């Protein structure tokens, strides 16, 4: 006897198999449909494959033992990623509704899960699109030779370069000063930076054009946004492999250090990466698969998309580290050349007498004869491993390390344009899923009048998000974004995913779910899936959640600042968040998480006090994007 919580009235809230067949055969209903399977797959791939595949996975791979990291990554992909993906696809396809509609149908008290998904999609969408705005800014600035981040600007009296730039580097300066114009701490707002506001307008405008009519327009847009990144990655791979030093980067990336497998942090990071990389619990995937035909093979889809996502992560890691290897080698060569020049100048030796191959022995010889002079020269130690291990992730990788590497390539503007187009497409296709995960639940909640066309809905969502995202266009915007990234898109998602699995396994009932899948794809899910959904995947998610919470709670709440006035500049300092920041953190993490129990309690009280539930959840009314219901009774 499988454990199942009592769930009366479930039959009334969902369409039966017979109804679904009828729906499918007569092709009634105004629910949007995918034009073809390719659109659906490309949209899901686009949603899953995002900036994280390019700038988080390579960093994790390199810092957690290179090739050895593949082992926890692949294991957790199978234990956590694929089952959750299959679950979301199947339930969306079965219940033909967005995330809110699905959970509400399963049990009214679970509406909170849908609302939490919506909130997280909204918050993440806001800051994610700001990153796209930054990418667009860099894209706009790539149409000039030389690239603006390749040289430091001159100071006022033209005698030298600006001090902040001279102390750090031209790419750092362009990022922190000319792009972000970052203030020294989060409390100093620094005012709105008008060029970032323009870029934000552009980013939200492009997004609006693509999502204006829901999947009707995004379905066309994904042909470009989901495929172009692969083309560009391949171009960069070919370019990267022809550069000097690229192979040292790739070797460094994949050199396995098996002892990292004993470090629990490695497994945690692998689990978190798999989870966030698949864009699970946002509600977007449920929504996308609800537009599928009822007999679509969602099991195969889940496996395909997981494989594509995994492959893309590894492919992007190879490309990124070939470029990082090139940059590290170039830095190493420059360092060595600097030292050699210093030696030649100090000892008046002819050019060419010391080169890379005899540097060490020449240095030793000179040190033997005149060590005081050598001391006075203050030579840098040049070690290629140090340069390679300057592994950076996130915005630092894209906007500092990569842009620096691009300036060293010939025809830099071309590579810059290609790179930022790729990042733009990666980000935009993820945004489609975020918007879907926000708009559809809003519609299901009935917040907007039903008369309003879809264009107005998406317009309002984009406008409101843009308005709030102006926080990120301030001088302190970068710090706010890091805050949102740490707190809005982390803990709530884990809670939602855990609740999803519990709801399907124990409230909806795993037996019913198995029968549904058998109805949809023709065979029952085998024992592997059952074990995953009921026990193993929730356990994995729960463990990650607990460790995450513990790590966050025990660590100090600090953030990294860029302060030219500080002593250790250009090394970035850690600063503490001001006390009122705890309120913000609570709003970001706590509110979506607490919505689930609060709504559950509220609905429970309503059911028991007021007797019946809302009539809106009548079986005959499908909470769809469209309003017309082809069955006999119509409900609002």
């Amino acid at each position: 006897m499988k454990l199942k919580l009592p769930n009366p009235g479930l039959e009334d809230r969902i369409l039966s198999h017979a109804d679904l067949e009828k729906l499918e055969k007569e092709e009634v209903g105004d629910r949007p449909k995918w034009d073809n399977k390719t659109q659906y797959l490309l949209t899901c791939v686009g949603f899953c494959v995002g900036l994280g595949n390019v700038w988080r996975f390579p960093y994790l791979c390199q810092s957690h033992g290179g090739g050895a990291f593949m082992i926890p990554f692949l294991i957790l992909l199978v234990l956590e990623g694929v089952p959750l993906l299959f679950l979301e696809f199947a339930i969306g396809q079965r219940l033909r509704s967005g995330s809110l509609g699905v959970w509400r149908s399963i049990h009214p008290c679970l509406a909170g899960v849908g609302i939490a998904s919506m909130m997280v999609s909204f918050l993440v969408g806001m800051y994610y699109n700001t990153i796209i705005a930054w990418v667009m800014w860099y894209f706009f600035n790539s149409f000039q030779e030389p690239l603006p981040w390749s040289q430091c600007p001159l100071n006022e009296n033209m005698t030298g370069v600006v001090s902040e730039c001279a102390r750090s580097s031209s790419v750092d300066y362009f990022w922190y000063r000319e792009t972000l114009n970052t203030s020294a701490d989060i409390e100093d707002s620094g005012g709105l930076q008008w060029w970032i506001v323009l870029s934000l307008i552009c980013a939200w405008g492009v997004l609006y054009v693509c999502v204006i009519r829901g999947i009707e327009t995004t379905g066309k847009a994904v042909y470009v946004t989901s495929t172009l990144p692969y083309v560009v990655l391949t171009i960069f791979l070919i370019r990267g492999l022809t550069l000097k030093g690229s192979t040292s980067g790739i070797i460094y990336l994949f050199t396995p250090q098996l002892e990292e497998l004993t470090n629990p942090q490695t497994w945690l990071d692998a689990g978190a990466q798999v989870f966030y990389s698949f864009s699970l619990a946002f509600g977007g995937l449920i929504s996308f698969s609800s537009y599928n035909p009822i007999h679509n093979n969602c099991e195969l889809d889940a496996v395909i998309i997981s494989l594509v996502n995994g492959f893309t992560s590894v492919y992007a890691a190879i490309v990124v580290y070939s470029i990082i290897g090139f940059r590290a080698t170039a830095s190493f060569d420059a360092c060595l050349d600097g030292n050699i020049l210093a030696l030649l100048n100090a000892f008046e030796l002819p050019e060419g007498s010391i080169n890379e191959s005899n540097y060490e022995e020449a240095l030793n010889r000179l040190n033997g004869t005149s060590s005081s002079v050598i001391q006075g020269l203050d030579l840098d130690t040049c070690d290629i491993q140090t340069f390679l291990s300057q592994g950076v992730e996130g915005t630092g990788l894209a906007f500092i390390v990569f842009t620096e590497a691009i300036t060293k390539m010939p025809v830099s503007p071309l590579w810059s344009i290609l790179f930022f187009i790729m990042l733009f497409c990666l980000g935009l296709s993820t945004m489609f899923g975020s918007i879907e995960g926000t708009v559809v639940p809003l519609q299901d909640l009935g917040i907007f009048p039903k008369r309003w066309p879809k264009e107005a809905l998406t317009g309002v969502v984009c406008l409101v998000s843009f308005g709030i995202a102006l926080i990120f266009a301030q001088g302190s915007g970068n710090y706010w974004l890091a805050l949102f990234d740490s707190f809005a898109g982390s803990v709530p998602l884990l809670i939602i995913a855990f609740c999803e699995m519990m709801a399907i396994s124990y409230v909806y009932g795993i037996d019913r779910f198995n029968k549904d899948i058998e109805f949809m794809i023709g065979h029952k899910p085998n024992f592997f899936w059952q074990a995953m959904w009921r026990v193993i995947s929730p356990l994995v998610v729960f463990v990650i959640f607990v460790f995450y919470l513990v790590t966050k709670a025990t660590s100090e709440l600090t953030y990294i600042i860029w302060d030219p006035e500080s002593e250790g500049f250009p090394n970035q300092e850690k600063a503490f968040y001001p006390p009122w920041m705890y309120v913000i953190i609570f709003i970001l993490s706590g509110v979506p998480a607490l919505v689930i129990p609060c709504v559950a309690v509220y609905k429970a009280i309503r059911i028991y006090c007021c007797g019946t539930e809302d009539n809106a959840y009548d079986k005959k009314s499908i909470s769809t994007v469209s309003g017309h219901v082809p069955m006999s009774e119509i409900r609002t």
Partner: protein
Amino acid sequence: MFPLLLLLCLPPALAAVDCVNEYRNGYQVRLSIKTALGDQAYDWNESELFLFRATIAFAMRKFTKTEAYEVSNIVVCNQTPRVSFWFIVTSPENPAQAISKNIVEQAVRESRNRINNAFLLTDKSLEFLGIPPTLAAPINPDTPPWLIVFGVVIGAVCAGIVALLIMSFVKRRRGKKAKEVPEEEDQAKGTDKAVTGETFEDRNGVYNLGFADDDRFTQL
């Protein structure tokens, strides 16, 4: 080799200015020809040195606006295999007296570009130690290039939004007109799969024209 170098230090014929003692008024020059030119590097020899002295004389003439300076007024000494040496500029009237550093510096800065080009080198590879390089002013175009690209993109976005909104509006208008002729509805089946709900008995359906799937009316 070394005695030869020493001999070269002495200026021919005229009264010798003792190069060593006059270092205070002299500048050290360092050339990095091989680094700058690679395969096309030329050898540093007496003729090159002669050219150098001539360019410095030229720079002095240009700066002081007289024709007084000759190659012999430029005294070079202490050459090293690095290709670095010191030079002094002596006054044309009195070869025993050296020109002040200040004037030499200004003269060199004024004609720096010409001097560099004579040797196919740059400020970095032909260093005058102590004379800061004149930095080229950055080109400041009137319109920043990024604004132009931004304008193009935002124009395309606005055009796209307007076009899509107009298309939806037109479709909706047509939808309203078609609703008034319900008989034709049953026969007219669009190429789209979304069949109208009219085929069912109930006509109480609330048509929500505002939704994306108005494609059933596209046959009109």
